Structures are given as structure tokens and as C-alpha cells.
């Protein structure tokens, strides 16, 4: 109702605006040196009034203002400002090229900082590749997913893990997009590395629940990752050699100023070191991963541009030739940017995404091969209409076909196991959306949208319903293409920003997200064999409603920024598992599930200094995350595993001189909620522990300091090189990873708790080069 009112008001504003003589400037904003389009750059027209707009995901902008003389100011973090006089007396196209700031760390970008207080959705954060490059991480392999864990409201799934939890959501409630394609398993090597090779990445934005209406399908966050387009002016090779992995990135023009390509590859070689070991258990082990990012784009004419991008990654883990497991994602995107006119921008995407794993056991009389896969084909149409000086309308639709292969087992005749093909499952996933960004006046802005999502599970196949004990109640057979169960859900989203003065603002928002794909995981970490299942006749769509509000303030002439946000999130139809749930190769896997609800609330504080030799940020989160699951803890609310009361991260980067840059991060967090025994008893002569409640205890708190130093080598016109030395866990704290309870081996009359820790003092050195 309220929304209808605002939309009507918006419409009138648009109509009234025709009364005045107005003209439109549009164009694309790029990096002057490489031709990379700049995402989220600010373009401001300063005259009697000020009109501003952000460039979209393809660097396109359009701004409409009354006839007048203006100063046009274009700004982007890490680039020099561009100022020019514009006499607006007709529609015109103006492409802007910004010059990168020579020393990236000393960036002074006042206007774009100011925009953080006015323009963005609450809970949205961008992190620059420069920051990702400088934050020390495990093994010296710069990593997007580990760096975002240092932001408020985002928690690590475990030490060294690339898995993360956003505002009390589960690990599978994050939508991770790489050039619009869903990445189903974003980790390599059981979670210690993320699948994203930072060399190939241009832009990283995370939305903590309040995602634009264009996106949906996950409850707690959207991590939107955009690959580099490639330099369209010069050929360039960059790379790095590290202790356990190396990277190489090649980019250059296809046709100068019209098209470019980028290919980036990475491989770990820890397994080569394993070969040197005399221990047969080590030297016969196989552990490595590789990934490949590739992208090409070509501009046919000023109004049409086509992008091709792909990702391919694979992990291989094995022991001699007896046992092996491989898993990986592959994605592909074809996008067509079309500018209909100076106000209407369109992007059409065709997207392919695939995640699979296979396990092979190859013993003399026991050969076994298991395959599991999820495959998506999508089409997406997104339109942006820069309606007037105060309105921007986004609308579009998308449709996806999912094919799930839950498990195919092939065995040799002498194997202990039968061959088994679990039938493929099919689902369609679609959505249509419209959203409007509307500046009522210089101070008040609204961002309202609605997304209608549809999910349908279709035949062929047998579909079961279960009674409360999990035994089959009835079976129904559906023909190919027949709808088994469909869900239509409306997802309203609304945000308002009120600018109190030049340096502070308040924001408030509400959003609803719906999730129709669910990850079944028997482990707290990332496991390649975790299984994605669709909503069905037994599994209802998960729903999250989030309310959030925030206060944003810049200090010291916009050199410092501060924000405080609060959120409350309510989660419905959350999934948990029965005791001893059998999730592997089980056609009746839905009978193993129990359902419940969740709630999460918290306060996030964030202070940041972006300017000067010393910069960095402090983030602190105070939060609570709870679950209420049928049959667990007598149906009472209890803390979820990822419930960490306090979470603190401090990142500092200090540029001593042109040669040396030092950086460090410090983290502290309350331990996860865990289930520990409250007694013991004896069964068949062995000690068994008695558990009184789920997650009734706390792991000890974690803290850790990491440091790194980067030494820039001599720069010549042709060649640049740098060394990065890093030390993870400087003071060697034994942070608890898990605690095991057991009989004391030295005194069988006693039991003991044994704490396992992972990493103490992990040094690394990396050489990076560019020519």
C-alpha cells in the first residue's frame, strides 16, 4: 500500500519534470590507462542544484538536468578526479576516462566517500582490490573471501576457512556470483582457499541481506564479484610465485580501444613438495587445485558490446591410485550490453553454471566411482531506465533450469557395493522484478522494489511424502515436465536514506529474501560432497525478513568514516538433520530432515581511515544468532553454532616509503557454540558421553595477529617486481579448532578434553611481477 503511494508520487515527479526543459548526458566511464570500465564511479553535475549518479556495473551512466551551465565532476576511489565544464543545451554523449592515482594507497576521494553516506543501501560494502592485496592471509595467497571476513557482520566458518556466515545466516545462504554466474562451492582444498583468483577480479561488493531486487535466491547475502575486462590498450603480463602456488595473468587488446581479453590461471604445487617426503603416507598423497579465469569483450559500436567470460576450477585430492576425489565449478556467461537510448540501458545474459564432484576408489577387488552434480542454465534480462533527474528504475526478469544429479554410483562386479543411479531431479526457477531509486529531494532518498519469485520442481520421477518418523506415506509418479510442486513468493524490499547534513546520514530498510536451493551438509566446514537440493513437496522455501537501520558519519574532512548498523532477522523453514542422518546417495534424503526457525540480531560498528600513510579499519560486531528446531533442546531457542557474541577485527596498512609497505590484521572473537558432554556412562565396556543440550557450551575465544611486509623492487619501464613476506599467527596462539573428549590414555580411569589447533606461525613469501 505504502509502496503504491510512493510509486505514484514518483510517477508524478517524473511527469512534472517534463514541464522544464531538460537534457541528458550519458556515457561510459573508464580507466584511462587500461580501458577497464569503472563500476560505481560518481558523476556529479554542479550548478544551481546538484545532480549525481553512480555508473552501473558496466560503467554506463546517464544524468538528466535542466538546461544550464554546469561543472561535471567524475570521481572514483583510487583515481584522480576529472572536472570539466559542461554547457547543457542539448542531449549529449560524454565518455570519461579517469587517470589512476599514482600511489594507490594515498587516495583522497572525498566525493565518493561522501556518497557512502547518501547513496548506498544499508548493509552494502565494497572492498577494493588494493585492500585485498595488502591484508595478510594464510599462506600469503591474497583472498577475497578471507578479507571480507574482516568486515562487520561477516564471520569466518573456521580458522583459515574461506567459508563465511553473514548476520547469523548459514554458509549456504550466501549468493556468490562471478560475472552473474552462481558459484556453488566457493572453496578450494577443503575451504583453505577461495575459488577466486584475485588477479582476475575487478570489483567485489557484498550486500548483507538488503540486496537489490535484481538478485535473490539466498537468504543472507549477495557477494557480487566482477572479473576484469582486460586492458584494451596494451598487452600486459602479471603474476606471482608463492611457496605453495603460482599465478599468471595475461591481458591485452583484441582490437585497440574496442575489445580486450584477459586470461588468468593459478595452480598450487604443495603436492610437489609432498613427493620429497620419505614418509610413504605423505609422498603418495595427491593434493592440488587449479583454476582458470578467462574473459573477452568487444564493442561492435557505441551502443552494443558483448562480453564472454568463463571460470573453470578443479581440486584433486587422493592417495596413490587407490582413492581420489575431484571437485570443481565451471561457469560461463555471455552478456550483451545494449544502449537503447541515452536513458535506457539493457544487459542480456546467458549463464551456465556447473558444480560436480566425483570419488573413485580403485582397489584390486573393489572399484567404485561416484558422481554428483548440479547444473544450471539461465537467461537474464536486466534493464535500467534513468528516468529523470531524480529517478532510476531497474526492471527485468530471469529464468533458470536446474538439473540435479544427486548421486550416480558405478561399481565393478567384484565390488562390495551395487551400482546405483539416483534419478536426476529438475527444477525451474524464475523471477521478475522492478525497483526504483528515487531522490525525493537533496536529503531524502528511497529505494523500493519488489521481486516475484517462482520455483517449480518438475518430473519425471517418483516423489514421496513421509510421516513424522520418516517412513514413506505415499509415492506419486510424475511424467516429464509435470509440475510436482511450485512456490510463488513476493519479496518486497524497501530502503530509505535521510541525509542529516553534509557529513552524516541515517538509513533504514526492510527486505524479504526467499531461498529455494538448500545445501545439505553434515559438517560445519566446507565439504565437497555436500549436497544441494531444491525446494520440493517436503522442503519448503526458506524465508528471511530483515529489518536494519544505520547511522553513517564522516569525520575530519571526510578522511575518516564511521558507521553503526543494527539488524534483526527472522528466518523461517530452516533445515536441520535427524540424529545419524544419512545424506549420501540416499533417494529418501528428505526423510532425514527436520525443520525449524531462526532469528539473529546485532550491532555492527565500523570505523575506517582511507587516507594517508597509515590507513585501515576497525570493525566490531555484537550479535546473537539462535535456532529453534523441532525436537532439539525441547523445542526451545538455542544458540546456533555460528553465534559469536563479540567479533573484532583491526586492519592497519602503513606505507613507510615508496619501497616498503607494512600491514597487519588482528582478530578476536567469542568461541562458537558447541555441544559438549554433561556426564558419561558405559556401553559394552566403553565410555560414552552424555549430552544434555545442543550448543550449550562455548569454545574458548580466538585471537590472532598476522603481519606482512611488501618490498617494491626497482621499477623499470618494462618490468615491476615486488616481494611480500608474511607471518600468520605472529604470537603462535593455539586457537582451538575443535575439542575431543576421550579416556585418558595414561589413566583409563579418567576422561579428558583434548583441544586441537591448526596453524601456528605460518610464514610465507611471494614474488609478484608485472611486465
Amino acid at each position, binding site marked *: 500500500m505504502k509502496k503504491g503511494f510512493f510509486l505514484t508520487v514518483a510517477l508524478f515527479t517524473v511527469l512534472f519534470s517534463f514541464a522544464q526543459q531538460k537534457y541528458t548526458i550519458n556515457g561510459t566511464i573508464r580507466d584511462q590507462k587500461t580501458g577497464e570500465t569503472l563500476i560505481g564511479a560518481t558523476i556529479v553535475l554542479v550548478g544551481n542544484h546538484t545532480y549525481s549518479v553512480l555508473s552501473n556495473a558496466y560503467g554506463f551512466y546517464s544524468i538528466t538536468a535542466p538546461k544550464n551551465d554546469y561543472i561535471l565532476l567524475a570521481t572514483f576511489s583510487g583515481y584522480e578526479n576529472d572536472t570539466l565544464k559542461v554547457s547543457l543545451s542539448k542531449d549529449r554523449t560524454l565518455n570519461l576516462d579517469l587517470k589512476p592515482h599514482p600511489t594507490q594507497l594515498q587516495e583522497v576521494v572525498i566525493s565518493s566517500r561522501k556518497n557512502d553516506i547518501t547513496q548506498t543501501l544499508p548493509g552494502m560494502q565494497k572492498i577494493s582490490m588494493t585492500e585485498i592485496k595488502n591484508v595478510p592471509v594464510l599462506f600469503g595467497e591474497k583472498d577475497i573471501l578471507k578479507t571480507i571476513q574482516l568486515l562487520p557482520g561477516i564471520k569466518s566458518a573456521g580458522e583459515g576457512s574461506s567459508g563465511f556466515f553473514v548476520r547469523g545466516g548459514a554458509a549456504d545462504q550466501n549468493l556468490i556470483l562471478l560475472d552473474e554466474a552462481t558459484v556453488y562451492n566457493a572453496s578450494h582444498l*577443503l575451504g583453505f582457499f577461495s575459488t577466486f583468483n584475485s588477479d582476475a577480479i575487478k570489483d567485489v561488493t557484498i550486500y548483507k541481506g538488503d540486496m537489490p531486487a535484481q538478485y535473490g535466491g539466498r537468504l543472507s547475502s549477495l557477494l557480487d564479484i566482477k572479473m576484469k575486462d582486460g586492458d584494451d590498450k596494451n598487452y600486459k603480463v602479471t603474476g606471482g610465485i608463492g611457496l605453495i602456488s603460482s599465478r599468471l595473468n595475461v591481458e591485452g587488446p583484441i582490437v585497440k580501444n574496442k575489445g580486450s581479453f584477459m586470461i588468468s590461471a593459478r595452480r598450487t604445487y604443495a603436492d610437489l613438495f609432498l613427493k620429497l617426503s620419505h614418509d610413504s*603416507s*605423505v609422498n603418495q598423497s595427491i*593434493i592440488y587445485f587449479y583454476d582458470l579465469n578467462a574473459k573477452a569483450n568487444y564493442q561492435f559500436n557505441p551502443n552494443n558490446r558483448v562480453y564472454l567470460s568463463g571460470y573453470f576450477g578443479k581440486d584433486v*585430492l587422493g*592417495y596413490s591410485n587407490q*582413492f581420489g576425489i575431484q571437485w570443481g565449478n565451471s561457469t560461463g556467461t555471455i552478456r550483451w550490453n545494449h544502449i537503447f537510448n541515452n536513458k535506457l540501458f539493457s544487459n542480456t545474459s546467458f549463464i551456465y553454471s556447473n558444480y560436480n564432484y566425483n570419488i573413485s*576408489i580403485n582397489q584390486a577387488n*573393489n572399484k567404485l566411482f*561416484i558422481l554428483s552434480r548440479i547444473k544450471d542454465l539461465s537467461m537474464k534480462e536486466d534493464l535500467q531506465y534513468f528516468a529523470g533527474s531524480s529517478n532510476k528504475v531497474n526492471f527485468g526478469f530471469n529464468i533458470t533450469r536446474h538439473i540435479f544429479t544427486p548421486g550416480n*554410483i558405478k561399481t565393478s562386479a*567384484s*565390488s*562390495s*557395493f*551395487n551400482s546405483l543411479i539416483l534419478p536426476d531431479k529438475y527444477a525451474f526457477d524464475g523471477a521478475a522484478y522492478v525497483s526504483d531509486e528515487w531522490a525525493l529531494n537533496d536529503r531524502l532518498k528511497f529505494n523500493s522494489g519488489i521481486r516475484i519469485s517462482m520455483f517449480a520442481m518438475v518430473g519425471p520421477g517418483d516423489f514421496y511424502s513421509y510421516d513424522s518418523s520418516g517412513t514413506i506415506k505415499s509415492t506419486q509418479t510424475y511424467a516429464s515436465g509435470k509440475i510436482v510442486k511450485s512456490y510463488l513468493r513476493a519479496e518486497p524490499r524497501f530502503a530509505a536514506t535521510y541525509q542529516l547534513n553534509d557529513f552524516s546520514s541515517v538509513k533504514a530498510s526492510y527486505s524479504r529474501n526467499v531461498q529455494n536451493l538448500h545445501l545439505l551438509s*553434515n*559438517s*560445519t*566446514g566446507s565439504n565437497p560432497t555436500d549436497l544441494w537440493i531444491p525446494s520440493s513437496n517436503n522442503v519448503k522455501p526458506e524465508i528471511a525478513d530483515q529489518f536494519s537501520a544505520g547511522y553513517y558519519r564522516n569525520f575530519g574532512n571526510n578522511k575518516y568514516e564511521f558507521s553503526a548498523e543494527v539488524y534483526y532477522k527472522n528466518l523461517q523453514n530452516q533445515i536441520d538433520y535427524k540424529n*545419524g542422518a*544419512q545424506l549420501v546417495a540416499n533417494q529418501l534424503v528428505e526423510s532425514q530432515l527436520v525443520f525449524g526457525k531462526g532469528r539473529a540480531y546485532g550491532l555492527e560498528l565500523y570505523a575506517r581511515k582511507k587516507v594517508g600513510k597509515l590507513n585501515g579499519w576497525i570493525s566490531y560486531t555484537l550479535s546473537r544468532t539462535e535456532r529453534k528446531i523441532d525436537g532439539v533442546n525441547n523445542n526451545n531457542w538455542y544458540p546456533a553454532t555460528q553465534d559469536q557474541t563479540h567479533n573484532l577485527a583491526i586492519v592497519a596498512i602503513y606505507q613507510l616509503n615508496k619501497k616498503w609497505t607494512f600491514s597487519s590484521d588482528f582478530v578476536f572473537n567469542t568461541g562458537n557454540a*558447541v*555441544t*559438549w558432554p*554433561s*556426564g*558419561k*556412562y*558405559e*556401553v*559394552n565396556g*566403553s565410555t*560414552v*558421553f*552424555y549430552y*544434555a543440550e*545442543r*550448543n*550449550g*557450551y562455548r569454545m574458548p575465544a580466538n585471537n590472532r595477529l598476522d603481519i606482512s611486509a611488501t618490498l617494491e623492487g626497482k621499477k623499470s619501464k618494462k618490468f615491476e617486481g615486488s616481494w611480500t613476506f608474511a607471518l600468520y599467527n605472529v604470537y603462535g596462539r*593455539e586457537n582451538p579448532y*575443535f*575439542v*575431543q*573428549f576421550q579416556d585418558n590414555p595414561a589413566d*583409563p*580411569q*579418567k*576422561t579428558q*578434553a*583434548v*583441544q*586441537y*589447533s*591448526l*596453524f*601456528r*606461525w*605460518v610464514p610465507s613469501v611471494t614474488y609478484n611481477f608485472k611486465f
Partner: protein
Amino acid sequence: MKNKIAYNLFFLIFFLLTGCKKVIDVSLKNADVQLVITGEVNNLPGPYKVTVSKSVNFTSDNNFPPVSGAFITISGNGITDTLEEKEPGSYFTHRLEGKPGEGYSLKVSVNGKNYNATSVMPEPVELDSLTFTLGRDNDIYPIANFKDPPGINNYYQFIEFANGIKFNNGRGNSVFDDRLSDGRYIKRTLYDDSDDVKPGITLKVQMNCIDKAVFNYLNELSQISGNGSFSSPAPANPDSNISGGALGYFSANTVSSKTVEIH
């Protein structure tokens, strides 16, 4: 099995990366004392035993107080046998004979409360032979070889003995079901702590055919005991087939075993 190997590899990675462990002090809450009942009827000649004991606090010694004075019966084959307490907390049948295919029900009355359980003894499956395989570092793993009867669900329990004594610490216990192996000739590698399986010992492997509820219980028990790990789901007490709120289980099962000297 594949999980076990993956698990080992997982650990291998950790220990390469300077993993370390230490004993810590944790302050654990004390829950109310729980009653624990375990009982078995099998296809070997009786008497069969039921034990009743109590749980203790985590910090106490591993002395689990026996519960005396319980009134216990097991019914089956048309008779009801009242058990006799021959030592504190241990109760024995007089004349009951376990037969495959028969159902048995246990009734325990103690301190004014009643606990009941039933279990059906499956048809027996013979353990054909024991063979061995060498793993990493020449660890020896026994392999149990047997033919799974086709068309029915079978559940197996393995118990290992070194020189006639059960392995310590709950090791040498595992369960297996034929969900993915129905009708196969099964060569089941017993991945248990290899410290116990070494040259010079006489190894006995006992294979019991158990019913579904007992399998579920023992399967959940194995998930929370011994090397339960960081990646396992939150531990919970196994679902018992005994009603009335006692811990433990009651099983009617068949027994087949093989003994081999390891050289």
C-alpha cells in the same frame, strides 16, 4: 569407508600444517544421573546378560555404579524368563534360547519405573573369512568377507578382540548396512585403530546380524564416540530402542566369528 579415507587425508593436511593438540581444562555442567540399560539375546546358548548402571559426572573416575534390585524379564519363543542378579548390576537369563526370526521383549522395573524394549533377531549371515590389507606405514587392516543375502535389509555389527580381549576405548567396533550393497559379496575393511592389530596377536572378529533400530543406535553411537571430529554434526545421545527414558539398547542378534593369528 570413503569417509574414513577422506578423513585421514584431511588430517594429513592438518598435521603437515603444524597442527597441535593439548589437554585442556573445561568446566562441564553436571546433568542428572541417567539410568543405563544394555542387554543382548543371541543365537548362541545362554545365559544372556542384561546390565543396569548409572551415569556419572565427566570429572569422576570411570566407575559406573551398578544398579541392583531391578526386576527384569525377557519374553520370547512363548516363554518369559525372569533374570537373576548374579553380580551387582548384572542380570542373567535361566532358560531362554535365542532363535533367529523371533522377537524378544525386555522389561525392566527399577525404583518404581518401567523400561521396555523389543528387538527381532535377524536370520544369520555367516562370516566366511578374514583377510588383511596393508595401509599407510604398513598398518594392518582386517577385511571381513561375507555374502549379503539379496532382497532384504541387513545390518551388521563388527566387534574385534585381540587375544580374546575387546579393544580398548571403544575401538574395534563398527557397523555396516547393505543399503548400497544388497546381495553383494562384501569385503568390508575394518578401519579401526591399527595400534591393536599387529603381528603376534590372535585377532577375533565377531560379526553380529542386528535389527534396524539397534543399527541406528550403534551407528549414532559410533558417530559420537572415539574419533568424533570437528566436521561431524553436533553430537547427540543415540536414539535408544528402550522406552521410558533410559540410555543404552537391547539387541537380539545372531553371532558369527572368525579367529586368525597375525604373523
